[in-house]
C-alpha cells in the first residue's frame, strides 16, 4: 500500500465520519441559526448614533470585562445626567454611541454563539471515540491500515468541519450587524471568525481528550458538558467582575481579590475570545495561545489513544 492509497483511505474515513456526525447535527444547526439571529436582531431595536448621549464618565472601573465596564459607566452616567430632566417630567430619549452597541453585540450574540458552538462541538467531540468504544464499532477503522493517530486526527477534523457552517453563519451575521446598524469603520466579523475558529479547535481537542479517557457515551457527554459549563461560568464571572468591583468600591478596596478573580476567568476560552473582541490588537496572541493549547491537548489525546487496548 502506497502513501497515496493511505491518504485516499484517510479521506474516505473522514467523509464517513463527517456523514455520520452531520446526520445528528441538523437540529443543533437550526437552534444555533435561529437563536443567534434573534439575539443579533434584538440589537436593531436601539438607535446608535455617533454623538448619542456621550458624556464625560462620572466613575471608573478597572477590572473584568471592558464591555460590561463601558455599559455600566454609560448607564450610570446617562442616569445621572438625565435625572434632572426626568425630575422635571421630561423623558430623555436614549441614543447609544455605536461603541456601546458593539459591547452589546459582544455580550449577547457573540457570547451566546460561542457558547452554543462550544456546547455543540464538545458534545460531538466527547462522544466521537467514547461512543465507538461503548458500541464496539472502533474495530472497523482500528483494524484497517490506518494508524491510530490518523484515526484520531480524522475524527478531530470531522468534528471541526461540521462546526464550519456555524462559524460561517456567525461571520455572516456579524458582518450584517456591523454593516447595518453600527456606523463604525471597524467591523468585528474578522475577529469573530478567527476567535470562533480558535475556540472550536481548542474545544474539539479537549472534547477528543475527554472521549479517549471515558469508555461510555453518557460519561463522556456529562464530563464534556461540565467542562463547557465551567468555561461559561468563568466567562460569566469575568463579564460581571465590573459589577462586583462597583459593589466592592462602595464597601472596601479589594484590588488583589479582583485581580486573582480576573486571572482565574482567563482559563475559559470564551473569556479570551471576548478580550480579543474588545481589544482586536490582542487577536493574534489570543489565536496563537488557543492554537498551542489545542495542539497540546491533541497530542496528549493521540498518545493516550495509541497506548489504549481496544476490545474491538
Amino acid at each position, binding site marked *: 500500500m502506497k502513501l497515496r*492509497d493511505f491518504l485516499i483511505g484517510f479521506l474516505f474515513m473522514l467523509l464517513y465520519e463527517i456523514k455520520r456526525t452531520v*446526520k445528528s447535527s441538523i437540529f443543533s444547526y437550526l437552534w444555533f441559526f435561529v437563536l443567534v439571529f434573534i439575539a443579533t436582531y434584538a440589537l436593531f431595536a436601539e438607535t446608535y448614533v455617533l454623538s448619542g448621549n456621550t458624556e464625560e464618565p462620572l466613575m471608573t472601573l478597572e477590572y473584568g470585562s471592558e464591555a460590561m465596564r463601558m455599559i455600566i459607566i454609560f448607564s450610570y452616567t446617562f442616569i445621572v445626567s438625565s435625572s434632572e430632566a426626568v425630575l422635571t417630567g421630561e423623558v430623555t430619549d436614549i441614543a447609544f454611541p455605536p461603541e456601546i452597541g458593539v459591547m452589546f453585540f459582544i455580550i449577547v450574540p457573540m457570547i451566546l454563539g460561542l457558547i452554543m458552538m462550544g456546547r455543540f462541538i464538545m458534545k460531538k467531540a466527547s462522544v466521537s471515540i467514547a461512543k465507538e468504544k461503548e458500541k464496539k*464499532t472502533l*474495530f*472497523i477503522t482500528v483494524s*484497517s*491500515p490506518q*494508524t491510530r493517530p490518523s484515526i484520531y486526527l480524522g475524527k478531530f477534523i470531522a468534528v471541526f468541519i461540521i462546526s464550519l457552517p456555524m462559524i460561517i453563519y456567525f461571520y455572516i451575521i456579524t458582518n450584517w450587524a456591523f454593516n447595518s446598524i453600527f456606523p463604525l469603520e471597524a467591523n468585528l466579523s474578522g475577529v469573530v471568525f478567527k476567535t470562533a475558529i480558535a475556540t472550536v479547535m481548542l474545544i474539539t481537542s479537549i472534547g477528543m481528550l475527554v472521549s479517549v479517557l471515558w469508555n461510555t457515551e453518557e460519561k463522556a457527554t456529562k464530563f464534556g458538558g461540565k467542562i463547557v459549563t465551567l468555561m461559561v461560568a468563568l466567562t460569566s464571572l469575568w463579564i460581571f467582575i465590573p459589577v462586583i468591583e462597583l459593589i466592592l468600591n462602595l464597601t472596601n478596596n479589594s484590588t488583589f481579590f479582583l485581580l486573582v478573580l480576573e486571572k482565574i476567568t482567563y482559563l475559559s476560552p470564551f473569556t479570551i475570545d471576548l478580550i480579543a473582541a474588545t481589544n482586536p490588537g490582542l487577536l493574534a496572541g489570543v489565536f496563537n495561545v488557543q492554537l498551542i493549547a489545542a495542539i497540546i491537548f491533541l497530542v496528549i489525546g493521540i498518545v493516550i489513544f495509541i*497506548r489504549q*487496548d481496544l476490545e474491538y
Partner: protein
Amino acid sequence: MIAIKNLNKRFGKIHALRNLNLDVKKGTVHGLIGPEASGKSTVLRILATLMKPDSGEVIINDIPIKKGWEIRKLVGYVPKTPHFPPDSTARELVTLTASLHGIRDESIVYHIIKQRGLESVADQTISRYSVSMKKNVAIAMALVHNPLVLLLDEPMTGLDPVSLKSLKKLLSSTNKTILITDKDFNNLEGICDSVTVLRNGSTVINDELTSIRKKIGKIALELKLYDVKQIQKLIFELEKESVNVTVGGESVFIKFNSESEIPHIIRVAANAADIKEAKSMKITIDEIFGTFHEEAINEVA
C-alpha cells in the same frame, strides 16, 4: 507465517495469556480451542494490533507486530460479535473497508457482498440485519482486501446453515493462513490442519490435527441397543478386546486406533447384544480438548 513466542498479557490482576507459544504455517488453518476466558480472543486481538502484549514476540509474515500499519495490511479480522453503526449499510461498510485498504474497484466490493449472500440487503441499514447477516458483513469486510492472513474469532457462531456451509467451503478451499477460534469444536472439524488448546491463557496442546487424532483414537462408533440392560454385557465383552468404551445415555461409544479393527469389533458387539443402530463417528475436537484438558489437569496435580 504466524510465530508467537512467550506471549504475555495481563488485564489488571487477570493473567490472560501466560508464555504462549504458537506457530502457524503458511497456507494452513489453525484452530484455537478453549473454554470462555481462556485467552483465544485476546490472541486474535493482539495479532490484529487492537491490543498490545505485555511481553513476548509476535511475528506475522516476518513482520514484527510493532509495525502495526504493515501488519494490518496483511490481516483480515472478524471479531467474535461484530458491532456496526446501526445507520450504515453493508455496502457502505465494505466499501469503506476497501477504501481504507486502498481498493477503489467497486467490482471487488460487489463480488464479496455477493459471495457472502448479502446482495439483496446490501443497501439496507444494519439495524435490520440478523446476527448471521452482521457476521457475514464482518467476514466480507475481512476478506475484501484479499488478506494473506485471516483472524476469525468464532466466525461460525450465529451463522445460518447456508452461510455456515459457504464459509466452511471457503475456508477449506482457500490458500490463506487462517487462525480460527470456536467454542463449538465440531465447527472446526474438517477445517483445521492443526489446533492449539488453551486453558487459562496457557497452551495445553499444540499439534497437527491428524497426530492428535492418532493419540486419541481416530474413529469412534456409536452403538444403540434394543435392550439397555445388555449394555453391561456389551462393555464386558468389548473391554476384552482392549478398546476404549464409554457410555453416554442409551448409547455405547467405542474408540479405535485403526479402521481395520472395526469389522471385528462389530462382530464381537453383535454377539454380545442386540444392536438397534451402529453409527460411525469422527472424534470431534471437543473430545480432543477434553482428553488433553484432563491430561493437563493431571499433570498439574
